[in-house]
């Protein structure tokens, strides 16, 4: 058992090291340590399921160990900058002041196609629109557009702000049941919703989904594909 424990720790460290060496291309959206845990846990879990000769503890023990390693690694990355650099790496600025940093690109082993591909995923079809782009430790590309390419905001256009317009819609009826917390958030009473439903000859049991915001605007979807209504 002790051997399994140590083997798990050794493998964990080795796979993190291997993924860190392989770089961000292999990681995708997960952090290196998260990916290691995902791969190992799924494989270890199948050991005692597939082979009845293997006691269940042989799978449980390494999973406990991996879990502890993962939480330990996350605590270390939270507390120490050095450990954060070692375990998760640093974000890399790939476009700075509109200029592509070719040194960073070759370090990351990104081709021009990779860069353009990632920009398209970020909904940018012209590299010229980008002021700054950062490859995050998860491998995702974050983009900051040049001023002239940014979407106009209400603040830029000096549009007067209406009351409660920042309020998001909340689910107030889900599959025929009220969600009381959502009514509290919207500062609207449940009785108001009941009256609105009554006007449409509906009861709460007939509603599949109802969302509501603080301005009492709601979206209603009736059960059994009877159709939706918006107000």
């Amino acid at each position, binding site marked *: 058992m002790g051997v399994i424990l140590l083997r798990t720790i050794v493998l964990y460290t080795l796979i993190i090291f291997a993924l860190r060496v392989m770089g961000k291309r292999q990681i995708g959206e997960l952090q290196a340590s998260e990916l290691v845990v995902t791969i190992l846990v799924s494989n270890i879990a199948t050991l005692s399921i597939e082979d009845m000769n293997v006691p269940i503890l042989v799978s449980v023990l390494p999973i406990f160990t991996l*879990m502890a390693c993962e939480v330990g690694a996350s605590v270390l990355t939270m507390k120490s900058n050095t450990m954060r650099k070692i375990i998760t790496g640093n974000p890399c600025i790939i476009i700075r002041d509109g200029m592509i940093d070719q040194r960073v690109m070759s370090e990351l082993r990104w081709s021009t196609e990779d860069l353009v591909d990632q920009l398209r995923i970020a909904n940018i079809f012209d590299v010229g629109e980008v002021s700054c782009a950062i490859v995050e430790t998860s491998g995702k590309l974050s983009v900051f557009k040049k001023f002239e390419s940014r979407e106009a905001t209400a603040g830029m256009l000096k549009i007067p702000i209406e009351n409660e317009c920042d309020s998001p819609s909340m689910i107030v009826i889900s599959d025929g049941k009220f969600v009381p917390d959502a009514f509290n958030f919207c500062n609207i009473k449940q009785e108001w919703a009941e009256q609105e439903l009554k006007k449409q000859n509906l009861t709460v049991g007939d509603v599949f989904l109802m969302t509501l915001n603080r301005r009492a605007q709601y979206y209603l979807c009736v059960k059994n594909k009877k159709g939706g209504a918006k107000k």
Partner: protein
Amino acid sequence: MKRVIICAVLLAVAISLSCYSYYKVTEVEKGIQERMEAFTQPLSEKDKETLGMRADELESYWDQQESRLIHFVRHSHLDVITTGVARLPELARGGEFGEFSAEVANIKRQIEHIIDNERLTFTNLV
């Protein structure tokens, strides 16, 4: 913080289980060795009855211990010992002393192999 505590507890459980499994296997090995040493005299005297009785004692001891070892030792490793131990009483009563000694050596080897697997050695790690 809660997660850290849970993980620390689970890690402590995992380490304790590892230590316990090693302790248990070593204890069982000692028990088997002691019972096997008791075979020496009746074997040299070719005393079938005593040898048969002592083989029975070993079998009942193994049956008790196997149910505990099964939680952390591969079942196929234990099966080899179970089969060997089950053969011993009949081999002794049938007077097949050569075969009996070979089976005893085989069981010893298997239990040593199980302990070797549990040991924290560099060879086991690589």
